[in-house]
């Protein structure tokens, strides 16, 4: 068992991978992290701190870059400050049998460098829903199983939030919450009075509002409210692999991190029934390499982990390692969204703020909890916030001369905007698979996406818009604008599923420890493992499952079982 090059190989350095590496390294395991993206070291962020006049086109991206990034250019953070953190789509094609927007990172740290940073625990209901309404496969895990691992992960990440005591959105281990502003405080009163089942609370975000010892030891300090997060933050004020988990792994001396390494397959030995390591391509030289380890953790991102596993073919597993029952690639999901509303808040014209607050308001799920809605299963939450209009209106607005200039120099009215994120249903037919012949320039078979929303999601998105308008009306807003645009799956960038956890090898890929049913030293701990999607942002839950799986793998290795 000990004649391997490494104890553990972790594929991917994003939200899950870097945290797996940290945990293994701290337990003394020699850990190899293989990352497809370019190296980006903490504090070596190319565009951080640049003022617009220091950018060639003031943040605008020339057409030829957009042509290279024809998918990535639609992501909400895409601009000239951030585009190098996203992949070149021409080099990384995939086939959309049905439309799926696949946003992907181009760097070490993965999407942790560019994420939205909203961090919520899943609830009891989230883990029970598949069983209760019969969609998808029953989770082999309940909230009580994962709760201690949230307790472990959250203090390391550093999450600001308020203690609310809500069953639908369990409290965690929080740093002080970001404050609601004056408009939001007043709206909270009105909305909670009119709709007693709806809670209007500060967004819970992975920003250090009051750094603790373990943050300061890694050089992470208080959030400076620059709102430049996706460029990278040398303050380490929001959580990223680059600022926190990778440096924590690095300082143990047990981590080897290789960038520009495209992992193509997990290697399997029939005689021992074990994964023996992985094969990867050095994307710079084109050289193919193999490395061995006792245990393999797949954290390459939801779709990429499944793609690699499907491509890990052997005589035993011709359809991909551990995939005897065509479960791999099934039940791919994303949050459905596009529903919401915005409106103008009259008054408060003397009130303003200093700093660009990194999170606003969250309204947790209120549908299908104590009563059935009737038109759809499950529910949605809203991410919201109030702020004052700035100078941008002037780009297309009317006016010339001194009066125009004077008007632009003053903040405009307050506006409140709310966006829904809904729990889509797990469906067996929503799947990803490998293209039979097409490969990328490094020889990796292309992924085909065959995933779509159904009537449940459409009905939910319509309801999001209805309830958003109803709440803004109750709060006395004016010029209310209803949003109702259904984005294709992938658009919420919360893709999950494909290598789901479940009770049996016939129906699921992983057991309750994120361990492949058929290959005991192979684990998947990114979003691919998820059997449903809740309606809250998933990253912190990826990390909690990763911490739990590492703990289990450690015990199994100590006992010589894997």
């Amino acid at each position, binding site marked *: 068992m000990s004649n391997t090059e490494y104890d553990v190989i972790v594929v991917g350095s994003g939200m899950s991978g870097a945290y797996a590496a940290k945990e293994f390294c701290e337990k003394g395991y020699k850990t190899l992290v293989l990352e497809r993206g370019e190296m980006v070291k903490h504090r070596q962020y*190319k*565009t951080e*701190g640049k*003022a*617009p*006049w*220091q*950018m*060639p*086109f*003031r*943040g*605008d991206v*020339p*057409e*030829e*870059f957009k042509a*290279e*990034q024809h998918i990535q250019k639609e992501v909400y953070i895409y601009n000239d400050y951030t*585009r*190098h953190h996203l992949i*070149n789509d021409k*080099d990384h094609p995939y086939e959309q049998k049905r439309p799926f927007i696949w946003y992907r990172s*181009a760097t070490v740290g993965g999407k942790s460098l560019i994420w939205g940073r909203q961090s919520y625990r899943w609830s009891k209901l989230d883990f029970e829903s598949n069983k209760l309404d019969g969609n998808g496969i029953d989770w082999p895990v309940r909230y009580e199983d994962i709760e201690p691992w949230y307790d472990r992960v959250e203090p390391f990440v550093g999450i600001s939030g308020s203690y609310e005591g809500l069953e639908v959105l369990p409290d965690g281990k929080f740093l002080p919450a*970001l*404050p609601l*502003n*004056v408009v939001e405080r007043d709206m909270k009163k009105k909305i909670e009075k009119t709709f007693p089942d709806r809670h209007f609370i500060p967004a819970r975000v992975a920003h250090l*509002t009051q750094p603790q010892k373990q943050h300061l030891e890694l050089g992470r300090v208080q*959030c*400076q*409210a620059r709102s430049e997060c996706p460029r990278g933050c040398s303050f380490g004020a929001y959580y990223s692999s680059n600022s926190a988990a990778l440096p924590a792994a690095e300082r143990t001396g047990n981590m080897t991190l290789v960038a520009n390494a495209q992992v193509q397959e997990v290697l399997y030995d029939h005689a021992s029934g074990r994964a023996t390591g992985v094969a990867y391509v050095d994307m710079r030289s084109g050289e193919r390499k193999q490395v061995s380890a006792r245990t393999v953790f797949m954290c390459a991102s939801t779709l990429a982990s499944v793609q690699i596993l499907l491509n890990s073919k052997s005589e035993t597993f011709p359809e991909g390692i551990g995939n005897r029952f065509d479960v791999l690639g099934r039940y791919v999901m994303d949050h459905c969204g596009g529903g919401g509303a915005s409106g103008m808040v009259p008054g408060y*014209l*003397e*009130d*303003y*703020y*200093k*700093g*660009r*607050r*990194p999170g606003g308001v969250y309204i947790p799920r209120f549908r299908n909890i104590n009563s059935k809605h009737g038109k759809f299963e499950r529910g949605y939450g809203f991410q919201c916030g109030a702020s*004052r209009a*700035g*100078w941008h209106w*002037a*780009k*297309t*607005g*009317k*006016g*010339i*001369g*001194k009066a125009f*200039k004077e008007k*632009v*120099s*003053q*903040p*405009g009215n307050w506006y409140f905007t709310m966006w829904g994120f809904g729990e889509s249903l797990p469906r067996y037919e929503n799947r990803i698979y490998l293209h039979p012949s097409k490969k990328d320039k490094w020889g990796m078979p292309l992924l085909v996406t065959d995933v779509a929303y159904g009537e449940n999601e459409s009905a939910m998105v319509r309801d999001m818009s209805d309830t958003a308008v109803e709440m803004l009306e109750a709060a006395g807003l004016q010029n209310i604008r209803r949003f109702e645009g259904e984005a294709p799956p992938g658009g919420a960038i919360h893709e999950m599923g494909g290598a789901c956890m479940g009770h049996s090898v016939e129906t699921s890929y992983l057991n309750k420890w994120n361990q492949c049913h058929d290959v005991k030293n192979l684990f998947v701990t990114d979003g691919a493992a998820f059997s449903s999607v809740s309606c809250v942002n998933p990253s912190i839950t990826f990390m909690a499952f990763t911490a739990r799986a590492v703990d289990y793998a450690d015990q199994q290795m100590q006992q010589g079982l894997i």
Partner: protein
Amino acid sequence: MNRRRFLINISAALGYGALVNDAAALDAALAFSGKPSGFLGPDELEFVSQVSDIIIPKSDTPSASQAGVPAYIDFYLSEFLESKARNSFVEGLRELCNESIQEFLRLSEEHKTELIQSLDDRLGSSDESTVYKQLKELIVIGYYTSQVGATQALRYDPVPGPYKEIKLAEVGRAWL
């Protein structure tokens, strides 16, 4: 071939396959110097300069031309726009002043302002001038994202420190 295209071709020739990841080197080579690149002729540049100052004149803070907006627009046309879009924009500039930029430059200040006001009034209507709309947008962006515009006409704080609520009077102007 514009300078940006040239640089991209060079980077490809040198074997830097991942164009996107080479963006920083390209950006460094492309930093706006503050001086006109010479794409617009003297009259065109003067025209853009006068329109800029009619839309954003000097008040207690500098005007658009004082903030380098005409040179930025010249740079943007030369380095950002693809040739087709660039040529149609320059064609459009002539249409704005009824075929002759020189004629526009000879008009009285009042007359120039009236002309721009009438173009501005049509914004958002069915007969809005596309090129005026585009020019105004460039002027507004060029000004408020310039160092002068961002720090004098607006308030700019790159490191605000912890978020807090304040009264508008404490800062007096909108943040960039």
